């Protein structure tokens, strides 16, 4: 298993209060059977990944759809009442440090100054979604609006402690979007774990989906008609290429989902103070690598590489020790 995930889990287990993730996936109005089918498929895949790969229990992975009978995983209808009920339920159930991830899949619209996400029956405007999300209080919340014309949601929902992802840059990007399909793909496999720490951050999922969307359009020889944004510093200005170094991306990098596979060896690690010490030492080395990277421009290349390698070798050796103690054999 990846030691970083282990560290996170072990740290949580030995003292820190647990941070559960709650997922609400809302599949909106399809309008056309083909769209309805595709939107539901994407929503079901996201829900399945959350439950199967990231081990979220059914009550923490809710799927709402236009037709509650359309898929076994659907927990309720995605009309205003259904959405309000689901949000209210999560707000009541979630612990104070829990995180909430809301994913919207469907069509969006933007007329005048008002952006909407289309639901069966009356829609919620962006402002109404903002009011709904306020029910989560101080909890860390991420909203992924994968709909067309979703860009204005960035400004409408921006708030401290909130990550907002939209599939489009503006309300004028009204064509059908592909973002949701690739966001689902990011959740399903390991390909989007770009820093190989065994976990999937929202930043990684966004980066993966954005790149795959661009590739999709390029291979089909189409002009890119959706430009995804991420805002996590609350300024209402989304970034097309967020990163850990900011201005957007640092909070999304810490909004992580831990796969079920990472839990397998937690009991061993948690029960072993040596392992915990090693994990902490290794974490410190990782922090040193981050500092070295930040100082790269001020150093000669050879010196940078030498120091980087020294740190990485230490991390590798620590990893071996951790792996050996948690029953992972001698490999790093």
């Amino acid at each position, binding site marked *: 298993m990846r030691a*970083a995930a282990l560290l996170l889990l072990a740290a949580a287990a030995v003292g820190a209060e647990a941070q559960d993730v709650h997922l609400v996936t809302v599949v909106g109005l399809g309008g056309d059977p083909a769209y309805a089918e595709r939107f539901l498929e994407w929503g079901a895949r996201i829900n399945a990944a959350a439950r199967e790969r990231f081990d979220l229990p059914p009550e923490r992975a809710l799927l709402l759809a236009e037709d509650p009978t359309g898929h076994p995983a659907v927990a309720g209808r995605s009309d205003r009442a259904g959405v309000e009920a689901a949000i209210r339920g999560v707000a009541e159930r979630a612990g104070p440090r829990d995180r909430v991830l809301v994913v919207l899949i469907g069509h969006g619209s933007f007329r005048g100054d008002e952006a909407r996400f289309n639901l069966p029956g009356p829609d919620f405007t962006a402002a109404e979604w903002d009011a709904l999300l306020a029910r989560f209080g101080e909890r860390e919340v991420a909203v992924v609006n994968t709909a067309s014309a979703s860009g204005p949601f960035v400004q409408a929902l921006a708030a401290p402690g909130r990550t907002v992802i939209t599939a489009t840059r503006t309300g004028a990007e009204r064509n059908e979007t592909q973002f949701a399909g690739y966001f689902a793909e990011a959740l399903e496999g390991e390909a989007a774990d770009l820093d190989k720490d065994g976990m999937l951050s929202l930043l990684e999922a966004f980066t993966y989906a954005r*790149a795959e969307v661009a590739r999709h359009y390029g291979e089909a020889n189409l002009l890119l008609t959706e430009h995804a944004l991420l805002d996590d510093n609350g300024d209402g200005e989304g970034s097309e290429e967020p990163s850990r170094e900011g201005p957007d991306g640092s909070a999304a990098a810490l909004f992580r989902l831990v796969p079920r596979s990472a839990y397998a060896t937690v009991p061993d690690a948690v029960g072993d103070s040596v392992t915990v010490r090693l994990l902490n030492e290794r974490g410190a080395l990782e922090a040193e690598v981050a500092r070295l990277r930040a100082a790269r421009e001020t150093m000669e290349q050879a010196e940078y*590489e030498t120091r980087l390698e020294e740190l990485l070798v230490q991390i590798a050796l620590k990893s071996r020790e951790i792996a050996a103690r948690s029953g992972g054999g001698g490999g790093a």
Partner: protein
Amino acid sequence: MRGAHRALPALLLLAAAVPLAAQDDARLQAAREAYFGGEYEQALAVLAPLTRAAPAPEARILQARVLAETGRHDEALAALALPGAAAGAAGGSAAAALARTRGEVLMALGRWDEAEAAFRASVAGRAPDQQVARLRLAELDFLRGRRAEAMAGFDAFIDLYNGSAALTGEELLAVARAVTWLGRASSSLYQDALRAYDEAADALPGDPRPRVGAGDLFLARYASPDAHEEYRQVLERNPAHPDALWGRARAQDFDGNPEALATAERVLETNPNHVGARVLIARIHLRAEDPERARAAAERALSVNPNALEALAVLAAAHHRAGDEAAFRAALRRADALDPAYPGVYATLAEVSADTRKYREAVDFAREAVRRDPQAWDALGTLATNQLRTGALEEGRANMGRAFQGDPFNPWFKNTLDLLDTWTHFRVVRTEHFEIALREREADLLEPYVTALAEEAYAALAARYGAEPPTPIRLELYPSSADFSVRTLGLVGLGALGVSFGSTLVMDSPSARQAGEFNWASTLWHELAHAFHLGMSDHNVPRWFSEGLAVREQRVARPHWGFRPTPAFLQAWHDGRMPPLSRMNEGFVRPAFPQQVLFSYVLASLAFDWIEETYGFQAIRRFLDGYRGGRSTEALAGEILGLDSATLDGTFERYLRARFAGEIRAVADLPTPAPGGLAVPGRARGGAGAGAPGGAADVEALRARVRAQPGSFPARLALGRALLAGGDAAGAEEHLREALRLFPAYPGEDGPLRLLARIHRERGESERAADALRRLGTLNENAFEVHREEAELRRALGEDAGERAALTRAVEVFPYDPDLHERLAELHAAAGDTGGAVRERRAVLALDPVDRARAHLRLAEALLADGERTEARSQLLRALEIAPTYDEALELLLQIRGEGS
């Protein structure tokens, strides 16, 4: 004359009712109207009574204009000579009034001294149009090379315009022309010239000259649509107006419209002595590599005006192109005697040299033109363009900048400078024989493939020809076809894929077009072959020879590369629509129909199949040596092949008939192709039967056609396609197999092989499907999807070697699909080709994958396997820099450091 009969009764009625002077005015106006409407004979008939005995200068001037405009210069001069009685009465002032027009007619005939005397008489006699005479005197100064005096003369018209409350229409025309001349030194003055033309048009209602002048001005400023509009307005009233037609012809020529020649020839119907039209016709012939016709047209122009420097320029170029050194030198001397500062002869020579691929010679000629006249911006641009083509990049860039400063309206100059600005985004990679410029964003991807292929091609061609072109060869790959076009022509819109200027090769990068549209590697090989041909022949090789041989070199390099005979080509050849071998160049430089250029590539390449098979490759080498010595194809064919032109043509024709006997029979019933389309679709991407007619009536009609013509390839193919579309795979297979037997090398992706592959695939016969695709892939250099589909099938069959080969061919066509490189890397590694694996892993990384940590790690592994430990470590650090806890990478790092588990 018909018009005259219509108008005269009206004039007679008028004569009975009004006084004599008023009658004359009415006649004059009627004549003017007839003239403006192109009724030249009617105008002359109306004017005749006015000039019979009276001085009537206004009528005589109009008469002379009509006669000169229709090429009757001698009659014009006669009209301007006062009869005895008239000369006696008010002879002095009348003669002065006629002098300017007389001077203009003499000037058109090249009788400069007499013209000068006439203009001076106009000025001395204070004629009403003496300002126009002053303009002509300045123009004469210019023509004689007295630039300073000429410019001073033109400059006076600025004062005339600014200091006069009201100028006549003729004076405004003179101002417009003078300011146009001054615009050579100060381009902003062209706006003033245009304003003067507009004012002249107001002052001279109906007179075509201001509109034609404005059209010429627009054309000189490269505003072809505006020029067309001005000419159109004139031609709407007088469809035969010679100068407006000439302007339209020049505008068409500027646009690249092949109708320019016909339009210029129409000028001669009204004015057979129109020097400008003759010169344009000569230039068009010269560009079409027909120096004999060019010479004849230029000489015809000179027979009207022996001092026409533009005609002398084309004549000199025609002699030079024809290799007549003595006549060439004589033409140069003649032009020098007229105006030693005239740049046009050398500028024309430079353009013709560039058109015939003698770029260094073009540089020398253009440099001489600029030496003679430093304000010859066109010549300076030609110098710059050809310096850029011959590797003198810095000088070319500097000269292009100077040319643009002098003529900021010139789109060629601006486009080229804009392009040169993008060079900062290119990476220049140097190899043993090449200097390769790649756009930075795709350089990491392309560099390994391009450098390897370029050197492979160089080595192969050097070995085959036993000679080498000047090196380094500069190879530029542009991701934008528009940029490639500007680099080649200065304008966008060139449809070619690559161009060879000798040791400078310019081409589309593989990203310039969609996957499957072209094969960059094959194109590179083709252009490099030109570099050898041009180098060995000192740029004397005819175009047909170099193009055909370059296509043959593509096929020699890789059997599936290069154009190959299609049904439409064979049909055109069979129908006699292709020139014989001895006149093969015509198919390239003067194509008779749109597809003839493409077909000419095929036909010329087949000629080299025949020559090499029959006479050996040394014969081809001897041709190139012979061209270097200035010999003609006809002479060389006699010497090397022992064949005169007729025998050469006949022997080659028999070769083709024998080689393609079956295919010709199979396509003989093809309908004549519509413009731009093939009788049988050449290729339709993904078109494995889609869109074919499939209705019962269609099928029955197609069956009937097959019954009537069982040996017809298109009939069999159409029926097979229709049956497949209707779900009858078994029936389709029978006809598709027969189609394949009839035309086994059909290269189109819409042909029997692709359809048979589909049938096999749907039946689960993967191996047969893959084999059909493999066979198609050997016939079509662009078949990206075919290779990819074959690779899929081979993978399913577990045929690693076949899959690897198919993917290699796919990547060769379009290297931008990371999945193909990823798989190819795995296959290379499994086959022990560590170098190949490294190359493919580098390609994956160069395509900027979202998972860069993994891509760096895989490259590190490949490098390690290839023994590149140092770079492997570096790549590993790149991976871990992104993902410091990446288990696999950490483990490999420890292994590299000897700390393996």
